[in-house]
């Protein structure tokens, strides 16, 4: 019995990360990368993959060592763990996907400062066992990836008239959308849309507005 209960809670952990506690659309954390790297689907996807990997590994590591960390130095310790995994990601991407890394290497290094990763480590992984921490990291990472791809989809389609670098229409329908201004427009409107969907169909009470 307890086994099946656990399974349900794992699925709900993933669902929470993607929908009701989506890092960008619902919790409103890590909005800088949501604007900065989403000028195309490809960049958004790669960034999302990098964050997904870092988030899962950080959650697992923090969960493993949670009993050895003194509460007074826990934030610096988490930062060390995050920095380690970001360095791993950074160097691997530099080695294997060089053309993409040339475009967004700076932002990969910046993952170390993303609020969502530290917040999941502090709020969840430091109090939970390894398996739930893994699923929480998976859910939040996928939620982040999902948000970046959606924002990138609209910005690239409207701003460049292409998707994943392949042209769809030969004009630039709304040039402003690939400029930083367009990023704010896209994030704001999509956030509103997700709140509306949540309130209309799932009975939610609107965004929690970065209170976490």
């Amino acid at each position, binding site marked *: 019995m307890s086994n099946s209960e656990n399974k349900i809670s794992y699925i709900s952990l993933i669902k929470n990360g993607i929908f009701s506690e989506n890092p960008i659309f619902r919790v409103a954390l890590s909005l800088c990368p949501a604007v900065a790297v989403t000028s195309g689907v490809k960049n958004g996807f790669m960034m999302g993959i990098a964050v997904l990997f870092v988030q899962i590994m950080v959650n697992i590591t923090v969960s493993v060592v949670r009993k050895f960390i003194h509460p007074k130095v826990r934030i610096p310790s988490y930062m060390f763990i995050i920095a380690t995994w970001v360095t791993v990601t950074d160097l691997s991407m530099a080695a294997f996907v060089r053309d993409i890394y040339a475009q967004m290497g700076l932002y990969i290094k910046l993952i170390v400062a993303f609020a969502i990763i530290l917040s999941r480590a502090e709020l969840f992984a430091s109090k939970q066992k390894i398996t739930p921490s893994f699923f929480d990291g998976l859910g939040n990472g996928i939620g982040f990836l999902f948000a970046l791809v959606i924002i990138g989809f609209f910005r690239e389609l409207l701003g460049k008239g292409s998707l994943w670098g392949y042209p769809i229409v030969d004009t630039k329908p709304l*040039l*402003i959308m690939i400029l930083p201004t367009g990023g704010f427009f896209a994030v704001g409107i999509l956030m509103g849309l997700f709140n509306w969907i949540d309130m209309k169909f799932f009975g939610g009470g609107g965004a929690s507005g970065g209170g976490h």
Partner: protein
Amino acid sequence: MADVKKEHELIVTVSPHVRDEETTSRIMWTVNMALLPAFFMGFYFFGLKALFITALCIISSVLSEYFFQKAVNRKVTVNDGSSFLTGLLLGMNLPPSLWSFNPFTIHVPIIGSVIAVVITKQFFGGLGYNIFNPALIGRAFLLISFPKAMTIWTEPSAAFFALDAKTTATPLGILKEDGIAKLIEAFGDKLNLYAELFNGHRAGSIGETSVLALLIGAGFLLYKRYITWHIPISFLGTVAVLAWIFGGKNPETGKMLLFAGDPLIHLLSGGLMLGAFFMATDYVTCPSVRKGQIVFGIGCGALTMLIRIKGGYPEGVMFAILLMNCFAPLIDRSMKSDVFGAVKEKKK
């Protein structure tokens, strides 16, 4: 006994009890009327294109406000004339060349109207809550999104029904690219240049060209006291002074020559008159304190001249007003007048 009101209808308030017929919708429709002379001049100079574009903007503004308010269950306030005014102002700020099938740019005014009404006004809570002037945000969005289509200017053509016209540069464009000598050459002599700029026979946006017609409308609004002199005069005055000081160029070296500019050209060209009298004075987005309105006007003028002389665009009225819109609440807060009878707190 039938006239006796129920208890809750007898509201006791502090005097003075002034009754007035002025309502938001009455003011809005009056401003619409005051814009008509300038619109008719644009219609006269640019022909049917001008009418089509402006009508398209008005229709799509009103419709998008109506459908958005229906969709979010807000009270539908289309009748108050504010979305009509947004559409009219946006249409008057667009180049007449947008009405063209090849290249197809007819969707541009519609996108601008939807951005202006839905994103700039309704997303912030409707009329009275918007931070920026809706029509100007619509135009700024279009200028950045369609940099090519938004900067093709047509000559005021004699052929009234023609949908095609020769393209040319605006006076400010010529001034920026080729200098003042070329501009005077294009219009014959200096006196003719002033006269043409004043009556509006020049390239430009639909409603901005005729200074004469804009002044008639503005005079009417000033007479009705719907706008006060503070913003327009400080705006125009700053532009004139800065144009005189920094607007001049040494014809041989092309470097800036101090105190040799021509303020009249800067005052009469571009969207300055339309912006100063009809856009900067928007009740919602300008400071309400008189002293603050003067600061607001000076800021608008300074930014306009900064963009015109040093910036990448030939015209800067739009960005100047939008930037000062951000500061309007701050200006209001720092210039609040003292309450009558209040004692100032002593500093410790």
